[in-house]
């Protein structure tokens, strides 16, 4: 769904968001805002916007349910969007294992909220053009993703 006129604004944009984990109902707010921005202000094609939104949403949810929140830094250029999720959560002991579809450490409480099916990282991988996860147990996790626009 694109409006007829192409938005004029294609310059580089940098955004910073704090993700608060205290209210689960707010998880996804940042992804929703970025989705709107890409669609309305930057005129990015709907399919690409959706890929960004889904990959971001999974990472944002993970940050809320596993890491007690964190920060998201975004850079949008004409060619790509880079999103960095940084948290000071418990870290991921085995990143390879965490990437397997169906593997989850989520407790029953998280499952009752609709997450914890072990599809978070597989979905990020699927929808992002580039994904890098760095994690240290007890220190935190940084997820970097890029999507070509």
């Amino acid at each position: 769904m694109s409006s007829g006129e192409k938005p004029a604004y294609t310059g580089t944009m940098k955004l910073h968001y704090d993700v608060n984990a205290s209210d689960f109902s707010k998880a996804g707010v940042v992804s929703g805002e970025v989705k709107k921005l890409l669609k309305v202000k930057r005129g990015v094609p709907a399919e690409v916007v959706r890929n960004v939104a889904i990959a971001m949403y999974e990472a944002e949810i993970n940050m809320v349910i596993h890491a007690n929140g964190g920060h998201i830094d975004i850079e949008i250029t004409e060619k790509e969007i880079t999103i960095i999720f940084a948290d000071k959560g418990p870290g991921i002991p085995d990143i390879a294992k965490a990437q397997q579809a169906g593997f989850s450490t989520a407790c029953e409480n998280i499952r009752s909220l609709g997450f914890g099916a072990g599809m978070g990282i597989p979905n990020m991988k699927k929808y992002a053009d580039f994904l890098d996860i760095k994690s240290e147990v007890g220190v935190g996790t940084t997820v970097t993703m890029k999507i070509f626009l």
Partner: protein
Amino acid sequence: MTVSDIKDLLEAEVLCGEEFLSNHVHTACGSDMMSDVLAYVKDQSVLLTGLCNPQAIRTAEMMDIVCVVFVRGKQPDEAIVELARERHITLLSTELRMFAACGILYEAGLRGGAKS
């Protein structure tokens, strides 16, 4: 099939988005696990779910889903309805259980249409 057809087939109540009942729906997905929904992109789709929390709406938002049907008679609170209203998503609630609701829509010609 339109959102209105789904409402009639499932004898569902419209909770919001009455003005979008004429929207077309091409595919459907039934799940209580949102990451499973997010795994398959579909166009113009409807989500049937028993998950009655804001994340069902946020998932629909990210996926460009046009209609969310709460099965098993679930009734979302006003905050959830408002979230959907702002995003122009039609919310329906049916007394039917997931299996029956999906079966009725499938029989009426709606398919999963998952693209991997």
